[in-house]
């Protein structure tokens, strides 16, 4: 799942990038509105996170252009403009959510997941799903699972889904840590052991 982030503050951009990658999202980064529009056109992304005040082209203008080319791709504004009117303008332009600065990792990820879930649930075709024993029904495209039989939602990151898929494909086998690292983090990833606590 690929997310384009447009943000002119280099440190914010970098920190958001690490947050998203740590959850297993792929990222495409842009430091201004024009670069973001170019990358939006050349890469196929599943969601955009846009700062509003950026050089060359601001986030509002960028959102307008994106919407004229793609009505469906989810857009989230990340902004220090915090007045109600700014939020209203953003949503009127067709954004799906508005995250006010300052925000932390957990708020950002929760908003992204919720927007992705909503946008996936309005897709016309029935979402793909697979079942784990008689316990869990997993919807990979919606980043969630339902507990069986009682119902009850579980939020999942792309990395959770990758781990489940690896384990499912080798059912009845013991899967080593190295295999999981290779398959779910990629071999270039420097393993930090805390992920396995």
């Amino acid at each position, binding site marked *: 799942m690929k997310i384009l982030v447009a943000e002119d*503050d280099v*440190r*914010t951009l970098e*920190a*958001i990038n*690490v*947050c998203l990658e*740590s959850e297993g999202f792929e990222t495409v980064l842009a430091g201004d509105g024009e670069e973001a529009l170019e990358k939006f056109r050349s890469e196929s992304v599943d969601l955009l996170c846009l700062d509003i005040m950026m050089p060359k082209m601001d986030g509002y203008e960028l959102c307008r252009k994106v919407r004229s080319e793609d009505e469906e791709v989810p857009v989230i504004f990340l902004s*220090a*403009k*915090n007045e109600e009117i700014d939020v209203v303008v953003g949503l009127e332009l067709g954004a799906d959510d508005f995250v006010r*600065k*300052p*925000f*932390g*990792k*957990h708020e*950002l990820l929760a908003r992204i997941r919720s927007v992705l879930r909503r946008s996936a649930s309005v897709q016309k075709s029935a979402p793909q799903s697979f079942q784990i024993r008689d316990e869990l029904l997993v919807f990979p495209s919606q980043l969630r699972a339902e507990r069986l039989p009682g119902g009850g939602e579980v939020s999942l990151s792309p990395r959770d889904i990758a781990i489940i898929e690896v384990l499912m494909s080798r059912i009845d086998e013991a899967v080593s840590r190295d295999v999981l690292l290779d398959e779910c983090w990629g071999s270039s990833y420097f393993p*930090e052991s*805390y992920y396995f*606590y």
Partner: protein
Amino acid sequence: LILAEQRVSFVNRVSHELRTPMTNIMLNLDLALDSVEANTMASQRLNLVHEEIGRLRRLLENVLTFSRRGQKDVGLSMRALGVAEEVGKVLELHRGGLRDQGIEFQLELSDELVVRADQDGFAQILGNLFSNVEKYGGSDSEMIVRAFDDGEQVVIQVEDSGAGVSSGSREKIFRPFTRLSDRTNEGVSGSGLGLAIARDLATEMEGSLVCRARVDGEPGACFELRLPRVVVESGKLVSFHSQAS
């Protein structure tokens, strides 16, 4: 007046500029917390930083609210509200905090009291008064929330059995950014704007908020909020007091 407006726009710009570095601090702090083991010295210290950032963030929002108040036009929507119900809702949010401080509370409210107020504004004032009791009421003390109709207005008193506020300071504490100097070393969090905003709100709702001595003369603080009453007869709203008189 021009100076005041310049100050408001300055405050707005400053607090706007603060948002980006604060975002960077919060994101990096979350990432740092992810990479340290729980229950270590490092994680405890980082969690403290996390709490302080939360405080800084609340301060930022309060500064903004306050500077916006200066620009008037806050859009209060006045309606009839049951005092017992609203007090109950806000108290629920503070139940944990009061319990942690070992503060018992006692309610002396009648179900029939109805005020004319903005619901969020009323809740904000009550929330501020309750959190002040949490901060300054002293541990293992008692809070009394009392409400009655004095024939003209509804009077809501929030009393604690803490150190109280000396009579010379009772007006001072409503000024923005005022903290009584002898209290600042108690590790108490606050922006110094809570009471200033609460009084502003009360005034805009045609009421008042003052600090006074406790009704029974015992040591402790008493905050008295007065709001326009709504006359209720046999469960039916008859009229707003301000219209009846």
